[in-house]
């Protein structure tokens, strides 16, 4: 938990001042979006909230819905 906060604070410190100083607003927005997503995911992981796996969804899509699958074994 603490690790998580420390790491994300660290990331913030390294990146944000430079971006603000150079007035790179677009970069800053992109950074913020990804930062929030990363932080949310990290938080979910630490708090043991199950994170849906994209591959499971893909597997479901391809195998069950489209029916394309290699035979097992």
């Amino acid at each position, binding site marked *: 938990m603490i690790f998580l906060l420390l790491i994300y604070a660290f990331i913030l410190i390294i990146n944000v001042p430079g971006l603000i100083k150079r007035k790179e607003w677009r970069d800053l927005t992109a950074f913020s979006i990804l930062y929030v997503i990363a932080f949310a*995911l990290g938080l979910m992981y630490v708090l043991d909230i199950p994170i849906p796996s*994209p591959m499971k969804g*893909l597997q479901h899509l391809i195998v069950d819905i489209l029916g394309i699958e290699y035979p097992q074994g």
Partner: protein
Amino acid sequence: MSIEKGKISSQQLLFLIAGFVLGSVLLIDFTVGITEQQTWMVILAALAITAPVILSYVVLAKRFAGMNLVQMNDMVYGRFLGKVVSTYYIFFFLMTLSFNIRDVGELYITFLMPDKPFIFLLVVFTAICAYAVTKGIEVLARVSHLFVVTGMFVIISTFILLIDQMDFSNFLPFFELPFIRIFQGIHIVSTIPFGETVAFLMIMGCLNKTEHAVKNTFFGLFIGVVSLLIVAVRNTAVLGRTQTIWTSTSFQTIRLIDIGTVLTRMDFLVGIAQTILIFFKCSLLFYVLVVALSQLFGLKSYLPLVLPLAGIEVIIAATVFQSPVDHAGITQNAGIIYSIPLIFVIPPLSLLIAKIRGLPKSERGKGT
């Protein structure tokens, strides 16, 4: 116009590709369970199938010299569709990178450090990859020589050390397995080590001279293929029938080295080499991912995105699969199917469209 200011030479491209393919050396374990003693054939067949596709990548890169994949997509498919295609690619890079990071974690957890918490390993590994990426492609290109030489040294020396334990009759009978399994094996090998070189479409834009790109790409690919073949042959010859039951065939093979009671327990050697090679592959994939994403957003530099993406990647790598069993199962099915369009269809299609429409014109436009 491009984000990356660095330039790489053609020869560095050779080693980059060789190192990238070498990074997948342990990943042929996915196919060994399916294709057993015919794995070497599968590798050769996959090479034959992917060679023309990879050729199309290089020709595409030469045509759109200096541009990377996202820019190419924009030009070929128009603003909106191009961005959609690029997003598809970015998803692919994101997922593939997380698989590879997870692979390293699984390697350590199963063999080398079974008691350590998984996520810790992932965080450390990803952090180092992120650091490598912030240094830029030029640095990666410069160290590629070293990594490739190290990898090849380990592969060749382990092969030589095991010669007395090899039994070449283990390759018989040829053509025993039903074709569908061979087909699946070919599919896996053409996607995982070879098809992932589609990532290089992002990197080839940095070539300073594109004349020898084709030659160097194929030479690099050749080095990668030869290494994979040596590993596959070594594993099959030594382990024979048992190769399908081990979690990691390469590790078990190395454990059998027992020469003069001095050269034993060499599996650390494979561990080191594999870690270095996967690190290289992950750094490249990470670089490609970051640059692609920042190109898509139209940013000035890709640096700010590195760390948040690293954070996302770690969590995805930690949660996407439940266990190596899951990982193998999904990779052998959905994993290779969803990437078919990206690897086999879209680049040749882009090339075709570009040829037809005479792109790139010196003035940007969709047929002005």
